[in-house]
């Protein structure tokens, strides 16, 4: 960045205050958006990692005052230093800003701030004084002037938000430190309530989330990340066992309406839940005979038992949400009919078909050729997709591919193989899952790609593959696999399962241009409001993003619900406060993997008990056993509670 007057962000000190704009030193590691909202320019940033000053309009002392007051407001009160220390600091700074500063005030700040920083229990107090101390060091003259001037300083305009590395990484921004702390304190009900403020299906995500949060867990720098996913599962299971139901406080909007949702997957369910909380009448149309979408059909029972899913969907239904099963929109009911009868529509149909491999004969209906999603769906409905087949070859490296191989042994297949064109390192599937599959004896063939289906009398008997090597990186940053000439080889198999990706079935539109779609057959929506070019239709999840994660679909569903509610109430749809901060946080990065935390580590995460590979590969019983309350409380105790506050001057 080259328009910065001063920055101490991330300990990289850049001071251009005495320089002409043309001579400004660039701030290397930082990028900061120009604007907060359309009408508000970002004049300064102050937060856990220092101060960034862009405009001379900002008075540093007032900026510090506003920030430490925000820290005090957000302090949980659970430790002495943060609770009282930031209060004392806030009052001193407020006094200086009123023109009532005293000579010793700077010394007092310099004495208290380090104690708050070093003595506080969590990152609110630990990071709160950081920019104040920077200001004292680099803006001492401004403070002196303010104190000696004895004149009030005009108050600036500021916006602030609490975040945490894990919260920021979570697409739906669950208050992870909050619910983890509740677990540590044994307040399991409060914990589940914190989660369900945003996410209605914690039992599902607590089992199958790809957990971007854990990748951004500061504890990982010390030893290992907090087991956030398993903790979520624990409170969800505990709730299921103890309460037998979730009770949600419904708080109807001023105006309520009728909303149709297409697809009872994670996105549709989350949207339905939030709409129901706001009192809207929601009807879901689901093409299959049960809820869950890909969560039910694409994820085998050994990872996500069906009763968990059933329980959570039941809670949403209890709020008054109707689900019509076995109803395919476009076939059993027309979209236009639905549109007529409802005030808004949310399309969350996911990416429910498999991508073609581009091999000859793929569409010929050979026996033994079963697309991955279809294969899993059959198994999940209790069928063996092709009982005669015993030797399985799955193509692909994502979670669907892994689910296919792991399920295969469980329905009695004898020999299970996986072919992937890159190496294990590049595999997009969850690495824990890959390891589980290896333990269960799945044979992995890396750096290989199928080039021809071999058949006999209309049945698959094998696949010809070619060896690959890794070349230059592609757009995704991964090295592109290139075939090695003359390295063809044949793998015998009687079931061939392509699982290289999923595609979106847009047949609900019956060929009409109801909404704008892309070349990849995804729906085009506004990134903040989830509205399509048809005002009444909103969409989110895989059918918008392309095949992605469950939690991302849930986040989309929630966002859509908020905007559908605004739409029904005749309010203008707008970028939310949270979205504005998301944009800032995305740039300034809430998580710094290089950070020197300076605490004692060495406290490893508590691993779950699992069924033994030999036992588990024969059954669809859930593999992971889940924490008991004691384990959960102890694991939760590892959390560093990395709440931090970011503030901009506008």
């Amino acid at each position, binding site marked *: 960045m080259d328009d910065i007057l001063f920055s101490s962000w991330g300990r990289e000190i850049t001071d251009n205050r005495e320089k002409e704009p043309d001579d400004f030193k660039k701030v290397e590691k930082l990028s900061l958006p120009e604007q907060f909202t359309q009408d508000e320019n970002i004049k300064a940033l102050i937060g856990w990692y220092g101060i960034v000053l862009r405009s001379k309009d900002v008075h540093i002392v007032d900026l510090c005052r506003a920030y430490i007051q925000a820290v005090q407001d957000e302090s949980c009160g659970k430790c*002495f230093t943060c609770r*009282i220390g930031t209060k*004392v600091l806030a009052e001193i700074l407020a006094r200086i800003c009123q023109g009532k500063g005293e000579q010793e005030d700077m010394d007092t700040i310099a004495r208290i701030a380090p104690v708050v920083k070093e003595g506080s229990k969590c990152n609110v107090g630990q990071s709160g004084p950081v920019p104040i101390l920077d200001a004292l060091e680099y803006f001492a003259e401004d403070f002196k002037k303010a104190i000696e001037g004895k004149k009030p300083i005009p108050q600036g305009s500021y916006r602030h938000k609490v975040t945490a590395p894990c919260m920021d990484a979570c697409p739906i921004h669950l208050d992870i430190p909050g619910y983890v702390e509740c677990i540590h304190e044994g307040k399991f009900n409060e914990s589940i309530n914190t989660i369900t403020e945003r996410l209605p299906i914690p039992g599902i995500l607590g089992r199958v989330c790809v957990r971007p949060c854990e990748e951004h867990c500061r504890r990982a720098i010390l030893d290992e990340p907090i087991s956030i996913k398993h903790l979520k599962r624990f409170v969800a299971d505990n709730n299921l066992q103890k309460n037998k139901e979730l009770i949600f406080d419904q708080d109807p909007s001023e105006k309520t309406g009728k909303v149709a949702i297409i697809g009872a997957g994670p996105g549709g369910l989350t949207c339905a839940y939030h709409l129901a909380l706001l009192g809207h009448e929601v009807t879901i149309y689901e093409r299959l005979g049960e809820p869950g979408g890909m969560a039910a059909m694409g994820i085998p029972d050994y990872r996500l038992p069906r009763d968990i899913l059933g329980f959570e969907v039941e809670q949403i239904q209890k709020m008054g949400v109707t689900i019509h099963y076995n109803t395919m929109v476009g076939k059993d009911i027309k979209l236009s009919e639905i549109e007529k009868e409802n005030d808004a529509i949310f399309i969350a149909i996911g990416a429910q078909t498999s991508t073609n491999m581009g091999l000859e004969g793929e569409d010929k209906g050979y026996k033994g050729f079963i697309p991955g999603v279809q294969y899993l769906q059959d198994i999940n409905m209790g069928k063996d997709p092709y009982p005669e087949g015993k030797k399985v070859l799955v193509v692909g490296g994502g979670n669907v591919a892994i689910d296919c191989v792991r399920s295969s042994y469980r329905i009695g297949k004898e020999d299970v193989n996986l072919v992937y064109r890159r190496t294990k390192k590049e595999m997009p599937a969850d690495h824990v899952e890959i390891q589980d599959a290896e333990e269960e004896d799945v044979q992995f063939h890396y750096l290989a790609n199928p080039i021809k289906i071999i058949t006999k009398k209309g049945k698959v008997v094998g696949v010809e593959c070619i060896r690959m090597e890794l070349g230059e990186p592609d757009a995704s940053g991964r090295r592109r696999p290139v075939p090695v000439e003359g390295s063809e080889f044949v793998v015998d198999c009687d079931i061939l399962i392509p699982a290289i990706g999923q595609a979106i079935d847009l047949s609900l539109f019956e060929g009409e241009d109801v909404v704008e779609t892309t070349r990849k057959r995804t729906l085009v929506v506004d990134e903040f409001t989830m509205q399509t070019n048809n005002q009444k239709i909103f969409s989110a999840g895989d059918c918008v993003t392309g095949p992605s994660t469950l939690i991302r679909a849930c986040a989309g569903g929630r966002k859509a619900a908020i905007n559908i509610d605004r739409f029904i109430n005749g309010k203008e749809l707008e970028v939310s406060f949270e979205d504005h901060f998301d944009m800032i946080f995305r740039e300034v990065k809430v998580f710094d993997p290089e950070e020197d935390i300076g605490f004692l580590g060495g406290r490893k995460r508590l691993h779950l008990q699992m069924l033994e590979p030999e036992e588990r590969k024969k059954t669809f019983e859930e593999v992971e056993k889940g924490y008991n309350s*004691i384990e959960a409380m102890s694991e939760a105790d590892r959390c560093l509670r990395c709440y931090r506050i970011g503030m901009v001057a506008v």
Partner: protein
Amino acid sequence: MVDLSIDGKEITVEEGTTILEAARSFGIEIPTLCYHKRMNPIGSCRMCVVEIEGLPHPMTACNTPVAEGITVKTNSERLQAMRKETLTLLLVNHPLDCPVCDKGGECTLQDLVHEYEIEGKGYQVEKQKQESVYATPLIRYWPDRCIMCLRCVTACREIKGLGAIDIVGSGFCSNIVAVNKDKCESCGECIKVCPTGALTENVSQYKGRPWMVDRTKTTCTYCGCGCQLEMNVIDNRIIGITSKDETGTNKGSLCAKGRFGYEFIQSEERLKKPLIKKDGKFHEVGWDEALNVVSKRLSEIKESYGADSIAGIASARCTNEENYLMQKFIRAVVGTNNIDHCTRLSHSSTETGLTTAFGSGAMTNPIADVLKSEVILVTGSNTSENHPIFANYIKEAVLKKGANLIVIDPRKIDLVDYAHIWLRQKPGTDVAWINGLMHIIIKENLEATEYIQERTEGFEELKACVEKYTPEYVSEITGIPASDLRDAAIMYGKARPGSILYAMGITQHITGTNNVISLANLAMLCGNVGVEGGGVNPLRGQNNEQGACDLGALPNVFTGYQHVSDEEARKKFEIAWGVENLKETPGITALEMLNAAEEGKVKAMYIMGENPMLSDPDGHHIKKCIDSLEFLVVQDIFLTETAQSAHVVLPGVSFAEKSGTFTNSERKVQRVRKAIEPQREAREDCWIIAELSKRMGYDMDYSGAENVMEEICAVTPSYSGITYKRIEKQGIPWPCTDADHPGIPILHIEEFVRGKGLFSAIEYQKPTELPDDEYPFLLTTGRVLEHYHTGTMTRKGKALNKLYPELLAEINPTDAKDLGIGSGDIVHITSRRGDIKVKTQISQRTDRGVVFLPFHFSESPANILTVNAVDPIAKIPEYKVCAVKVEKAG
């Protein structure tokens, strides 16, 4: 093990130890305000910061586990400065009002401020007026003094498992608030752990500085938990109750009764002088006159009708020494075995049942053992109301040790909130579900085969008997869904060790003995008796119920369960007491005495510290029996309903005014110490009995309670090693057979007292009186947390009455709707034996078709309604089941 260095000392501690624990175990003191041994580290005060070499940040010692090879500094200049600054900050919202603060002189904050030489003028901030309303009226909250260390919040959540209070708000405005006010049990755990004067007792009108107060350590007078507490006395006046962390089973915890229920001791209503009834009215008389009348009348009746026309009732509330003397008086001076006490009404079926199965009727394991249990089965015990301190342990086992909890109770009691499985049986169907559990355990091959073979007998008969108790059959009888029963059986059957706790919900039935035997069967089936964390544990209802039994206040045994028919035992007592011809036939039981009075067989009764008019079933009948007596002498501290019918009333003293011992439910013999002088002309019960005895020609010459205990030891093998000196600091669980014997916390370890554990085949049998068209409701009785027994103590002060002022009959919402009753409406409850008028409380705790009635209230005595049917072996009445009708009062 982990090696580390703290302040230059090389030490080795167990993995998982915190730096604070490690330091303290090696005598290195690190200051703390929020840390409390019994709770998980809170980490709020930041006083315990330490430096670890190589790390830029100081860390709090209380919640940082040790790591291999670290070098810790606990007292550097940097740390000193940090602590000093933290304390200075703390004084921002803590006034230096030490001169007027109750806690001044024993305040941790005060001590630290002194140690770190903090001066009064620190930082100033604008303060906000804070609400001072607290979760309970018995405690005063001083928000200004509260340093928000969160000990109170944590104790409420972790020790009590309640979470009634929590921190609310943010930053400087955060505050301690009663977030779940209805959960507050007024136990005062929060006061106990508060390091400053932010929480103070709000009961006593009298206050005093800590150094003016005499603190007498003694044993609580309420339930069988046997909590250790300190009576705080100034000028012979009790101004409060405190407790110490490390003493007794309660570890400093008390319940609302223990901590706040002391007003009765110095109540104006206490009996001041002996009373003699003349012309239907009581007249105050001197001791000489009263004792002379009593001794004369008893002697005359003995002379005219024989010794067996006299009967005595001893007391589970009196000391061991008093009970010993009472039974000695009845046996040696009067010459009859007609001595009993209220255990007849609560746990006589435990004595008969467990003695049959194991050879001893006492609690097999100490309560703290549940912390080692994998599974805990609680049945017929509303533990959190009746044995609150034992309930703490159950909750701790579940919340902190991960034990599974099965609650089997017709009422949705508070423990259900902590249970993994709750089964709601129809009252009176216990044998059926217990047999059902055993049926499933055997079918699933979960029984302890080796244990059964080596340590028990009678298994085949049991097996054959439970064969027909299939889950479906049991479900039909009990109303428990078959699948839930199966889950419970598997949970209890699979986890070892498993502990069973029960109380009156099991014992007070005509099948009480059978119920108890069945529980013993179940425990033995899984090899859970004689093991740590296992056992069959009857929770005794009264402070000294165990002791009164131990000391021979029963018609069939001398002290230590030495049977009166045992000639050797009789000889021993004849020699010890210097008498001849002690009776070899057992006397009659409590209820039989009253029936015999009605029949004219018993002419005189001497009742010490009991109130059968209110506590015994079928109250109208009881009154008739008592009125039939020619002579009744009642010795009590209040003019109870029973005392009002007496011819002579002798004022005894409360536990605060005498010395002696109580034996708690865990068989632990503990000291009772005199904290104040007797009120007015009341006299210690020992003295009264001895004086009567002397007047009837038998000298009882004791120098004091300790002297009585020496005699008890000499004649009682299980108590023979117990001396006051040995139990000065902490109690000893009997059997304690010689002066060096440490006592036995767990019974039946290698061998059952009777040799082999005996399985008995028990069939289900219906209760005497079940609802019918005329009396469609099932009445079940019990206690509430705030009151005790017939209310003679708990209703004599303001504190507990504030919490639970009047009797409330619990009725299920659906029934209430059918009857057109709202909460607070008055109803008539009628049984075949009488009727009462009572206010209702609509509550989900009680099942449809059931009415629950506490029995503490003389104005609406529940026992007017109960049935006079008894267990044929234990003679315990069936308090828990009778048929009634409920009608809205017009």
